[in-house]
């Protein structure tokens, strides 16, 4: 089975601060990490590899420094890594990004494309589904369990208040949520082996054969009109009561403050 994992290098938003004047992220000195949901997608692919045998390729669209995230994926156990990097991709919104990744995928063999649900910097959850649409693939989002069955996969898709079990034929695109698994660490032996024996291939816009008009800023219909920073709220009050008493307490507080 061939699995391709799409991953993104993101700033660790736990460490990010927002410039109150410009409303933009202050990225300086903030460590870059593999987007957490993408790491769950990678872990599940590596688990399937360990248990059933599979070839796991990781791909990422990003600047040259995103190589580090791909190297980390190799040290966790991925077999191959491709960085899709070109100035033509700069300024891409989710649509342009999904075109670049779909074009990359069309150059690869895959049975399963595994992405994270959403990235912690943009929080859109759009790129995975968009890739599936471009490639005419079945897609299952919010995946919290995967089993291999004859001819395809049995997948559990999380709902807010339950789940659904879906059997699907490959090829298929899945998006992972954190409930799917607990990602492994890099393996120290793999770290040395990877730097000695594995390279991160770099593909540019020509290599992936994409329509340049669909890439980067040109291919991005999203325009940011305005961004603002939420006023920080004061510390809330934590009250631990049985549900019925808690409801009464909330009502009394709402009355006290003349909301009702």
């Amino acid at each position, binding site marked *: 089975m061939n699995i391709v994992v799409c991953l993104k290098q993101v700033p660790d938003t736990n460490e990010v601060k927002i410039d109150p004047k410009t409303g933009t992220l202050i990225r300086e000195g903030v460590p870059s990490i593999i987007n957490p949901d993408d790491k769950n997608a990678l872990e599940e692919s590596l688990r399937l590899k360990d248990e059933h045998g599979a070839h796991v390729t990781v791909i990422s669209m990003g600047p040259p420094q995103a190589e580090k995230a791909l*190297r*980390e994926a190799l*040290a966790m156990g991925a077999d191959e890594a491709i960085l899709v990097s070109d100035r033509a991709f700069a300024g891409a919104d989710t649509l342009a990004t999904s075109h670049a990744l779909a074009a990359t995928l069309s150059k690869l063999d895959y049975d399963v494309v595994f992405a994270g649900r959403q990235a912690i910097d943009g929080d859109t959850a759009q790129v995975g589904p968009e890739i599936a649409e471009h490639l005419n693939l079945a897609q299952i989002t919010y995946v919290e369990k995967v089993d291999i069955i004859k001819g395809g996969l049995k997948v559990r898709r999380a709902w807010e208040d339950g789940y659904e079990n879906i059997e699907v034929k490959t090829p298929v695109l899945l998006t992972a949520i954190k409930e799917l698994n607990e990602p492994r*660490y*890099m*393996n*120290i*032996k793999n*770290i*040395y*082996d990877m*730097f000695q024996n594995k390279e991160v291939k770099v593909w540019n816009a020509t290599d992936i054969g994409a329509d340049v008009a669909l890439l980067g800023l040109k291919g991005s219909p999203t325009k940011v009109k305005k961004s603002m920073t939420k006023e920080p709220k004061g510390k809330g009050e934590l009250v631990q009561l049985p549900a019925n008493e808690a409801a009464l307490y909330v009502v009394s507080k709402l009355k006290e403050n003349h909301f009702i």
Partner: protein
Amino acid sequence: MNFTLTKEQEFVKQMVREFTINEVEPIAAEIDRTERFPMETVEKMAKYHMLGIPFATKYGGAGGDNLSYIIAIEEVSKACGTTGVILSGHTSLCVGPLDMFGTEEQKMKYMVPLAKGEKIGAFGLTEPNAGTDASEQQTTAILDGDNYILNGSKIFITNGGVAETFIIFAMTDKSKGTRGITAFIVEKSFEGFSVGKLEDKLGIRASSTTELVFTNCIVPKENMLGKEGKGFGIAMKTLDAGRIGIAAQALGIAEGALDEAVKYMKERKQFGKPLAAFQGLQWMVAELDVKIEAAKLLVYKAAANKDAGIPYTVEAARAKLFASEVAMEVTTKAVQIFGGYGYTKEYPVERMMRDAKITEIYEGTSQVQKMVIAGNLLK
């Protein structure tokens, strides 16, 4: 001169830091309180090839370098000194001498499972009457046909109660003094071997520090490590390397304590402002920061020398002397910064202070390190 870590070393540091935050730090207080050996942590370290970092892959190692291994000890020790010494005792004191002095057969049989972390290793040199003066070995090994028969006991053995393979030193010829000491590879299952009393310690309480007892213990002749009469040199060379590990443990404990103190200074308010706003305390942490950085350079230099294949005996002694004293100073002052809270088990700094003290004592006291350094100056 290059002070930049290699990409491999950076990745190892990141991996061990993540491992420490998720696996080591959450149980550090509990295992200290209950003196419970963290076997689950050791099993996880084995899975990620953390128990044989600097050794060749053909001998079960991760194929890494010594500085990466030292960084790994430093990172785990930031949260837990016990875990630091489990890693260091196993790697430097048991797998290390097998790597340096073992025959190909001994490496295949003993080093491979140890470096893979399938078994835990330990080192037995210290005896009730042979501490700093390790030449006063009273454990004897008498050749009897194809076996040596060992009698005597060892004390204060790190990983004693959990190890399956031991590097043990014994007198094969008392008349020759230090030239009569020989090293042996002893398995836990050998007839006549037993684990004695578990020590109740001030710090590193979850590490298994025990007595080892040899009562007509039968050790096959082929388990002699190195040549007969060469054991003292093997012990000293092993300890040279081990000291870099202990220095890294001390460094990690110091860094962990300063991190805690800095965090607390930003949160804790007195006289209407955070502790971080008081210059007296600012200067205190600034001084500690410089000492930690100086200790780190000494520790890394000793490790880098070992990687470069150049002498490191004096470098290791300097690193251990300085880093352990810095650890003691930083942890003591961290407790001071925390005030009354620091003296309680609600915060980790009192544990760090207790863990730090041993680094001035084991694998050569501070006084022994000074003997090594002065001996080199005055030779």
